[in-house]
């Protein structure tokens, strides 16, 4: 029997995971044109930092999550200075370098900490209805995901950094001529994207099993959302997270998780084929057409 409430919770979780995992990648890809194949491993680093803070340092959960964000942002900053900076304008090379980094990170973490981590209890308790119970944390996660999108929107439209970043996307040379240090914009962007990956890992740590290979799952998920979303970071990530979350949750609910992932990926291949610029590209074209008709 279809249980609407269970399906809704499933949807909330898929939506939040997709949006959170993708937003950092979308920012880095959108502004720097760099595809960070180690993004999943950055999420993994965030999750590990949370577990480390919570269990090894004995910090409260919220502080551990804060620690994770700071650690991942700093890590991203260093990676950008050491590696990514050297591959600007060489798109394929940046993919190879970050793929290498992802192997080093996941395997390095395995050597360092072994195959599994102690779990973190899920906060906020549960809601029980009939024979089912669901964690309220999933609701909180969805709220945070929407909140993150709002903060990113604010960051890019209301702050000096946002103006510089958007100028850099539109015309890098002109921005430099007008005094924007594009190198610094890139550096900050990568750190912000990494911080968001760290936040994702931190938020997922109480919900999933933290292990060195967890990055792979989230990398594919975040890719899919970015590609389907298209060029607009906030709108694209929100819409495609909403759409793909529904696909994933629906298929997972009626079949199983593997089928859910497969259908998700097949949908993505179709979107790449028919809508090169994803949902937002489609929306933009429709808007332009309407505007042209109105004029």
């Amino acid at each position, binding site marked *: 029997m279809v249980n609407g409430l269970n399906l809704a919770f499933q949807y909330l979780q898929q939506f939040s995971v997709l949006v959170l995992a993708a937003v950092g990648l979308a920012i880095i890809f959108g502004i720097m044109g760099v*595809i960070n194949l180690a993004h999943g491993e950055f999420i993994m680093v965030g999750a590990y930092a949370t577990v480390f803070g919570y269990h090894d340092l004995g910090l409260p959960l919220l502080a551990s999550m804060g620690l994770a964000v700071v650690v991942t942002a700093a890590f991203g900053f260093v990676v950008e*200075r*050491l*590696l990514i*900076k*050297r*591959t600007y304008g*060489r*798109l*394929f*090379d940046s*993919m*190879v*370098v970050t*793929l*290498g*980094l*992802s*192997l*080093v*990170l996941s*395997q*390095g973490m*395995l*050597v360092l900490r072994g195959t599994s981590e102690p779990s973190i209890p899920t906060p906020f308790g549960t809601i029980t209805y009939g024979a089912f119970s669901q964690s309220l944390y999933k609701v909180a996660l969805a709220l945070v995901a929407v909140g993150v999108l709002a903060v990113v929107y604010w960051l890019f439209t209301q702050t000096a950094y946002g103006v510089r970043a958007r100028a850099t996307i539109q015309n890098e040379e002109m921005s430099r001529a007008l005094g924007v240090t594009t*190198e610094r914009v890139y*550096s900050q962007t990568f750190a912000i994207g990494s911080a968001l990956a760290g936040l994702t890992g931190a938020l997922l740590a109480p919900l999933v099993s933290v292990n060195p290979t967890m990055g*792979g799952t989230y990398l*594919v998920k975040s*890719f*899919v959302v970015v*590609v389907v979303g298209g060029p607009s970071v906030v709108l694209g990530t929100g819409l495609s997270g909403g759409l793909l979350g529904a696909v994933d949750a629906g298929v997972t609910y009626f079949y199983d998780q*593997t089928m859910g*992932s*497969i259908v998700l*990926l*097949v949908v*993505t*291949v179709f979107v*790449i*084929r*028919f809508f*090169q610029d994803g949902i937002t590209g489609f929306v933009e074209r429709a808007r332009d057409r309407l505007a042209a008709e109105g004029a």
Partner: protein
Amino acid sequence: MADDHALAGLGERFEGPNTVGSGRGFWVALAVAAAALFAYPSLTSIYQATQLSRYLVAAFLALSLAFVWGYAGILSFGQNAFYGLAAYAFAVTVGNLASPLGTTAAAAVAVGFGALASLVLGYFMFYGGVRDVYVTITTLVVTVVLNTYGTTASQVFVGSVNLGGDTGVGISDVVLGAGPVTVTLVQPLTYYVIAGLLVATYLGLRVFVNSDFGRVMVAIREDEDRAEMFGYDVKFRKLVVFTIGGGLAGLGGVLYMFQSYSVTPETVFSAAAAALPVVWVSVGGRKTLLGPIIAAVAIEWVRTAAAVQFPEVARIGVGLLMIVSILLLPEGAVPGVRSVYGYFDRHGLVDGSRRATERVRHTLRRTLLGWLPGAENGPEVARE
């Protein structure tokens, strides 16, 4: 005289701007290397020949990626997927048609399946206007789908063969033939077959990339829009290249089955498996054919040895190799060796080494200072 002329005419087809190595010296060296390759089993042991034949199979995969990425600019994370699909197709066909003729047919079917899979995917991508990184992402996504499906398909039967999920599909032996004539492929015969096909494939690809079609491939790699403006059908050419690449990978997959007898999703569809060909090709030099072959054999050799000694560190080594090779040798090792040779050829040994140390010192200083934020142009400014 007449012979020389004929040889020169023959040589022309194998030489050109798109491949490394030309002239009598190079061909003599290559002949010596090929002779050593064929003498290897009788000089060492069957065990060592078996090991080397595994690394030679990797070279097919490396050649297939070098062909599509290095020559036509299509970075594909799907070459190992075509390789895996062909290996699965071979195992499934052999399982269903258990006869020497069936096995021979299976080899052809499997190579064709690799080519067909890349033809379908390529048609979908190139004629759908998918370009650049989106091609790379699409191929990666396809590989991930195959991995997800492969690991869970534990009760999926094709004919009478179970795809086996994580454990994959196996065959018992490879007996080729037709009617009364049969050959059982065992080592070192398998080794000779693989080595012979590798040499033939290498020479064939040399002719291909130096042909007119090869020149257009390079033009597409350098500037797709410009090639299109010149009137070339870029989509069609990319599709041809991608299909040949898939067929080559498929050949590698069949040869893999010839000597491993079993295939699992982990060995052909996993992310680590998708990364390896990219490592071989970028380390060896993607714009060459010889570099990827040498790199594939050398890296697999070291990686296998390392995996026995320190299994955990081997993958870290692969990752580090990818990073270091792209940052320090963006063109790969073989072009690097060639330019070092050219450098000393121009400057002489003594003067050349003095200049080289000076340059290394300068580069190191710039690199180290470049790591500090805000010091991007430090040394250059100081010099001026």
